[in-house]
């Protein structure tokens, strides 16, 4: 993999002693595609949360690839109910544990894909955030309904080609911008909202740990590339994830009590939007010849520019 940055995340110091074998809480051997960003994201979240964690998962790739009966990749109490209710199921788990006096020193995580979270599940999510449950909601944002074959969602980026927002003679792909779900979550006046990415795993894990140390509802949106849906080589997942950040298209930040308290600066590592777009088949149509395509690319540059201004990324 190319080194994308001059100042990378601090590499962990090499350990002298042999590390004990760790049992991943989301065990290996599941059916995710190679290079799946969501599988990696979920593994990191679970490792950060630890075994004393209850997990409610929405329908979607994550649920499907991890629990084909009689197998399960989950080494923690885990439930899947439906596509749009993991936040409400987790709310019920929390209430039940409290009523039974079993809520001490445990975490509760509700999770789902971008579709299950931002679209069909936004009602249950809003209810959970509003009610003040002590639950962390994690949205794995692979920017489309991947489990059903890459249809657009409310978090699909502008001009991305999906199976329901195809490019064509009259179309440049998805006509809408990403819904600002972290801002919607923050508008519930919850204590902690963060964005993260599998491109920066230590940052993601630190945010999960921090979120779980705070009482009340928390929301983390993790950007997770999907090699199949985004159409990039499966060994480029991390690189693509980093490029999303370094172009300013995916801002990484924390909001505490509604205020942005921390952003991941991109500074002089900033990359032009095209560098992120051109490695993905879902944006290939933007690189056709002609003034029209250039106009579309300019719109995407402006999205990056707006993020950079809004969050002070450089």
């Amino acid at each position: 993999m190319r080194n994308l940055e001059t100042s990378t995340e601090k590499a962990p110091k090499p350990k002298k002693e042999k590390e004990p074998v760790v049992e991943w809480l989301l065990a290996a051997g599941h059916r995710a595609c190679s290079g799946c960003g969501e599988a990696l994201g979920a593994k990191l979240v679970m490792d950060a949360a630890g075994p004393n964690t209850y997990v409610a998962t929405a329908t979607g790739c994550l649920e499907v690839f991890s629990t084909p009966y009689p197998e399960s990749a989950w080494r923690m109490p885990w439930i899947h109910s439906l596509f749009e209710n993991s936040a409400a199921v987790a709310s019920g788990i929390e209430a039940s544990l409290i009523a039974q006096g079993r809520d001490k020193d445990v975490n509760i995580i509700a999770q789902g894909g971008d579709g299950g979270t931002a679209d069909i599940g936004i009602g249950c999510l809003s209810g959970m955030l509003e009610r003040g449950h002590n639950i962390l909601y994690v949205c794995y944002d692979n920017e489309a309904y991947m489990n059903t074959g890459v249809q657009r969602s409310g978090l699909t980026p502008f001009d991305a080609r999906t199976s329901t927002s195809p490019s064509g003679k009259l179309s440049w792909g998805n006509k809408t911008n990403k819904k600002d779900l972290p801002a919607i979550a923050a508008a519930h006046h919850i204590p902690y909202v963060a964005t993260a990415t599998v491109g920066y795993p230590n940052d993601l894990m630190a945010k999960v740990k921090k979120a779980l140390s705070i009482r009340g509802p928390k929301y983390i949106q993790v950007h997770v590339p999907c090699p199949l849906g985004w159409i990039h080589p499966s060994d480029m997942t991390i690189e693509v994830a980093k490029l999303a950040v370094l172009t300013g298209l995916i801002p990484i930040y924390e909001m505490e009590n509604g205020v942005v308290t921390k952003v991941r600066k991109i500074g002089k590592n900033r990359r032009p939007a095209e560098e992120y777009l051109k490695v993905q088949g879902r944006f290939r149509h933007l690189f056709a010849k002609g003034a029209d395509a250039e106009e579309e690319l300019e719109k995407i540059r402006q999205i990056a520019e707006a993020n950079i201004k809004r969050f002070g990324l450089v």
Partner: protein
Amino acid sequence: MRKFIEGSMAVAEAVKLCRPHVISAYPITPQTHIVEHLSQMVADGEVNAQFINVESEFGAASVVLGASAAGGRAFSATTSQGLLLMGEVIFNIAGLRLPVVITVANRSISAPINIWNDHSDAMAIRDAGWIMLFAEDNQEAHDMHLQAYKIGETPEISLPVMINMDGFILTHAFEGVDVISQEEADSFLPPFKPAVHLDVKNPVTMGVLAEPQWYMEARCRMQEALYESRPVIKQAARDFKGKFGRWYGDVIDTYRIDGAETVFVAMGSLIGTLKDAVDDLRGKGEKVGLLKIRCFRPFPGQEIAEALKNTRRVAIMEKAFSLGASGILGDEIKAALYATPYRPEISTFFIGLGGRDIPKSSIVNVYNQVKAKQQNNVFVDLKTELVK
């Protein structure tokens, strides 16, 4: 203790006695009073439960699903559009084999929007895999809640139970109800010991993906559990009678059926009116009786066939029907009889839809019609001038 209370309060009092851990519901007429009473009880510290206000019935059903999966006793109540909005979760709760109890204050389905009683809501989710009980009056509704948890939580059964009671007619009616004491309730209904539940000490995976080589078996096990629940439902009714002396039938009940040439069949509060009508007709020398269906799912086909075997005519009175097909009870009863040598003449009637009043005179009319000749899917008291 005997109290003069609203039907909704009779339910709330019963739910309180069941010591639920989590209650979650959403307002909809005519269910709302039930959860209003319960939220007051929680606010006053009379019920030591978590009361979760939600953004929709879909959320409420999902909350009680999660609560039950985590090993708690969970309760919700709804009706009509609320039950339909819960629909997806209703099926899922049963598939996950979670013994949630939901009270449905039966109401019609929109459009046209109508807040009054019939059974269209419950009938719409009849294939979801729930045990479905219908209460005849508020005392039965009160008592049924204790039985419901006992039945659903039986480890071999592990199924949700829906208690149906007619909206307004029962939920808003004030009448005397013997409210069970907490000690008596505790001695009847033990704490919930889930067969499987979410626990960090013993992690399990619930809600798996079942591919074609597994799905059929899971559904077959549900079907078996529903059939195996019949003796459990009967036992709960007998145990209840043993402890409290009250009896409403088990999966069915009969009234003055001996020697009856014509037997009415119905569910819910209509049973009360029908008992009066039967008494009147018997007083006039007419040979009539009544079959009450108390448990609609699992469908007590054998018990019904047995009860109707000596009858010449059957008049099935339904508060719902399958649009584009016919009466639901009617078809199921005919199917049950087909497996036996008994062939009474069966007439089917749709009655009281959308809350239309059912006076005794309407029942006498029905009786006269079936006595004259067999009738199919007749809308009782239809204003024919409006549908021509």
